């Protein structure tokens, strides 16, 4: 069984189950060890409320704080993502949940809203910004796009509009904030939305220290309406947290997190390597599967279950662990745990008020069995880079590779900030098997709107397509630069939607697959930020100099040296200098005394005259009566 199908199956069944029990809450944890000592953990929390209760403001499991925002802004369907890190497709294979619950690096938000969408959108981002402690309020019109092909509603929006007698068409708006750093302050409000608030059930494993230490993690909030044919609607909120933990790193003790080398006697040397001397050792890897337990990886065991729905839903299992059947798994709990084991996966139900822990000791598995757990190949590989040099121009280069023996159609969405100005005539699709079928393009407006570019491309079997275009970098206004302007500007990730086709539908994977490239860092020409102060000082100095000289030219009168009378102060200075010269003469010795006296007098005269002249020009202090 594949990871993705396992996850899509319950999601597809959910509406059928909840049609009966309308106020409901379920949670599920999916664990799967990945190669290189990584562990994938996928948390899913689903609550529903009848639409009538939502409309009349009576909430049970559905969070009231979020519902108020949705009502106030007339949002029909909402998707919010917080993501950090990169899913390593080369070593971890296909994305969990077919990429439908992850976002680009930072924060991503898209929603279907009622007709007066512009104002509602601004209210929505501001309210969500307050609720999730994120800078979502910076998603302004310049960062908002209206994609056409990339997203489709997950809920039954048309039926909902009929039930609500809504006439206006719902509009999709999409915004990304790649610069946002997702951290603990976003997790706390996320947990507050859950009925058990991280105090019981699988959410008790979620701890900011471990979650944000993961190699890749994404938090998602998805609200969608589900209407049955009879016109009964329910509103479903699904909160998911997906992460890939490095087992070794998460198991390090918190008090001394720096890894230290083992003592030499504990290290086994790799004997297959050639040694030149006896004092060297190539340490051998531990081999086999690394040992781990829930409490060591997540820092604490699960504190009881959060089963709220009543008797009917207790059939479901809370935890699914996907390991080969010969892997030893010990359940540590005070009470008996109902569990089921099928080939390749084990399921557990959490005890009511007791701790629960899973322990998987270190074990060497036969290679044949791990072969059965070969990673699923993703439908598409994608990477995106900036090219070019200099502060004026640059280029974008995207590489899409279809590894499968059938052709695939994809939608490629770019939303670029306004200060990156693409030259659309340079847009080029090169490579053997690419064909552009459709293009949607909204040109940018400076400071008001970014570029929206959507391409529908068909990629031939086993071929690679390159999308390239050039762009110009805009020069920003002085106040538009962030404090860390020299770090560069984040360019949001490109969203790629792989449309389902006949070949994949045959394999039971009817739904879209989403992937996002990494976000990029664009260096823009930055000015010297001390410039205004330099300018003020420099111009002031120049003006003051000019003013001083002209003023003196106007005010002073110029006289010959001989006409200058010796002022009181000049006399004092003269006498002082005379004294100094005499003392100096005495120190040098009596032989030259006479000559010095005469020379001294002459010098005094010169000094005084020079001083007077300088003073006249400079306008400084000194003898006040010299220009009578």
């Amino acid at each position, binding site marked *: 069984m594949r990871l993705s199908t396992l996850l899509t199956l319950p999601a597809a069944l959910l509406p059928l189950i909840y049609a009966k029990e309308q106020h409901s809450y379920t949670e599920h944890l999916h664990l799967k060890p990945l190669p290189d000592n990584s562990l994938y953990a996928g948390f899913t929390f689903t609550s529903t409320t009848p639409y009538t209760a939502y409309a009349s403001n009576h909430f049970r499991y559905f969070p009231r*704080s979020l519902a108020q925002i949705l009502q106030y802004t007339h949002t029909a369907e909402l998707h919010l993502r917080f993501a950090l890190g990169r899913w390593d497709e080369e070593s971890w294979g296909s994305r969990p949940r077919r990429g439908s619950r992850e976002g680009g690096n930072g924060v991503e938000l898209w929603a279907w809203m009622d007709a007066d969408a512009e104002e509602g959108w601004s209210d929505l981002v501001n309210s969500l910004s307050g609720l999730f402690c994120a800078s979502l309020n910076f998603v302004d019109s310049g960062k908002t796009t209206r994609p056409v092909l990339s997203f489709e509603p997950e809920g039954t929006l048309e039926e909902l509009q009929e039930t609500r007698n809504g006439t206006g068409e719902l509009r999709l708006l999409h915004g990304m904030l790649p610069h946002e750093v997702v951290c603990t302050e976003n997790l706390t409000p996320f947990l507050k939305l859950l009925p058990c608030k991280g105090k019981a059930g699988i959410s008790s494993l979620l701890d900011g220290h471990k979650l944000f230490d993961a190699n890749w993690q994404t938090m998602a909030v998805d609200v969608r309406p589900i209407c049955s044919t009879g016109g009964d609607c329910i509103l479903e909120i699904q909160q998911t947290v997906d992460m890939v933990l490095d087992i070794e790193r998460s198991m390090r003790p918190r008090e001394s997190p720096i890894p230290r080398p083992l003592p030499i006697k504990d290290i086994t040397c790799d004997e297959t390597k050639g040694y030149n001397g006896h004092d060297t050792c190539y340490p051998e890897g531990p081999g086999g599967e690394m040992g781990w337990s829930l409490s060591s990886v997540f820092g604490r065991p699960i504190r009881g279950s959060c089963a709220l729905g009543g008797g009917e839903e207790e059939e479901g299992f809370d935890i699914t662990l996907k390991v080969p059947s010969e892997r030893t798994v010990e359940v540590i709990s005070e009470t008996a745990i109902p569990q089921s084991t099928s080939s390749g996966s084990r399921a557990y139900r959490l005890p009511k008020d007791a701790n629960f822990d899973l322990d998987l000791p270190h074990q060497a598995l036969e290679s044949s069995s791990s072969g059965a757990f070969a990673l699923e190949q993703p439908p598409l590989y994608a990477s995106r880079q900036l090219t070019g040099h200099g502060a004026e121009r640059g280029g974008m280069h995207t590489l899409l590779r279809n590894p499968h023996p059938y052709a695939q159609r994809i939608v490629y969405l770019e939303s670029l900030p306004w200060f990156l100005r693409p030259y659309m005539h340079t847009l080029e699709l090169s490579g053997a098997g690419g064909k552009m079928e459709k293009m949607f393009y909204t040109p940018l407006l400076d400071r008001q709107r970014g570029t929206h570019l959507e391409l529908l491309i068909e990629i031939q079997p086993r071929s690679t397509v390159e999308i390239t275009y050039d762009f110009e970098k805009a020069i920003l206004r002085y106040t538009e630069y962030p404090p860390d302007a020299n770090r560069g500007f984040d360019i949001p990730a490109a969203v790629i939607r792989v449309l389902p086709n006949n070949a994949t539908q045959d394999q039971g994977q009817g739904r879209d697959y989403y992937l996002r490239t990494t976000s990029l860092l664009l260096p823009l020409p930055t000015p010297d930020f001390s410039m205004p102060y330099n300018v003020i000082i420099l111009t002031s100095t120049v003006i*003051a100099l000019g003013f*001083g000289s002209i003023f003196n030219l106007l005010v002073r009168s110029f006289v010959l040296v001989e006409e200058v009378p010796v002022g009181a102060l000049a006399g004092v200075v003269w006498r002082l200098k005379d004294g100094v010269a005499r003392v100096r003469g005495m120190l040098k010795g009596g032989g030259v005394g006479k000559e010095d006296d005469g020379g001294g007098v002459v010098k005094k005269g010169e000094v005084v005259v020079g001083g007077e002249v300088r003073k006249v020009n400079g306008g400084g202090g000194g003898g006040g009566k010299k220009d009578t």
Partner: protein
Amino acid sequence: MNRWADGKACQLHYPLYIGLTWDDYDISPVQDLASQVQSLLRAENDLSLYDFYIIADTTTAETSQRAKLSGPGAGGELGEYRGHALSVNVITDPSTKSTSASLRTWRPVLDVRHNPERSVDSATLAPFIASEIRKIYEHENDAISHLLRDTPFTTSGQVEALSPEVKSSLDARRTRAFKYAATYHLTFSLFTSSASPSAWEAEQALEDSIRPLLDRFSSISEFTVDTQVQLLASFSPSIAGPQYDESTREWKLQRTDLSGFVNAAEWPLNPGIGSGPTINFVLFVPSEDQSPLVLAETGGNSWLIPQWGGVQILNPSGKQSEKLSAADLRPVMLTFADQLSALLGLPDSPASPSLRISSLVRERATSLVLSASSTLGALARLSLKLTSIAIPDSVAKSVDETILRLDQACHDLRDGRYHRALENARTAEGEAEQAFFEPSMVGQVYFPEEHKVAVYVPLLGPMAVPLVMAALKEFRKLRATKAKVA
């Protein structure tokens, strides 16, 4: 602006039109009685804020007769329909021993039972009615006098000194109540410290107990209601928590803990979106091992947090059920209803709720007029003090609107149209606040002259040096020539 701030623009007076009916008399003795009562009421100086107009109304008598016949529902609009603040209904009843008066609960009607055969009663009828009316408006008069105290709207002799007890009770009522708003958001939350009960029939219970009260208030404000259930709620770490009392086998919550009982950091009680304050009502169900939980001093289970909401503890009954039924919630909701009236500032007397609400309308309108005027005064002082502040057009427009609305409110008050006065005063208050807190003006305040100096000093400093030196020189020269002349 200053006329309002100084209280010169409006003389606050409250005309009260009181209808008088006497069921089996002709128009003339009723008019006699009316004029007697009116002169009696005006002769006394203690209700100086009011102008009483007693109107003998024979048509009302017919209406009320009909109302009596057709049942209680038909005459519901009696007072409001006639524009009367109160209707006095004198009923001749030979069976009564002495004259008695009673207020109807949901209508502003005072029924006076009177026995005409006893001549003593006939003579004292007018003073009796006057004293009854005075009793009804005494409390409101105190409250409004208290509002007007220490404001420029007080005129000498109009407001008499209040006793300290009355004053403190009025103060308590005022600190408890929310500021007046056009819309209030009511949030009813069930917090349980364990995982059950996880549901409550709040919708039904609210419909039964809270909705009638809200309908009464609907002439003053609008209300939105929402409910939520929050599980696994823990106490805030800042409070000591309940202590077990061996003797009574109860968990006692100390008085000092009550202020920190609501765990603001963890309990999701965020205010509603949109304008208007949120009033929170919290029902807390303690866990099995911490129940029964009571307040240490009174043994009660509910308390009110001024200008925030109400808290109530519901100890789980013997059988732990998943769901609280509407019947379980009935007493809870009645307590919440009491707390809500207190939080909205409803006065404690007179006995009839409809009279209390109309007296609340007058109080609120008065306090809004006062607050809008004082905001105007503050804005005027501010603009005089900070001369460099730039006042945008929007502020000027708001001030104009405020003054216009205040004038209208004043007229409405004097004419006895209290609901319209409230509406106008509310708009005036809103506009005044908007003018005072205009964001662009706040920004101006924080760019004082000193900052400009910092920019100009590098330019002016070097330029000043030759100027100063030349000035000194000229000064010396002048002195020297003077000395020479002398």
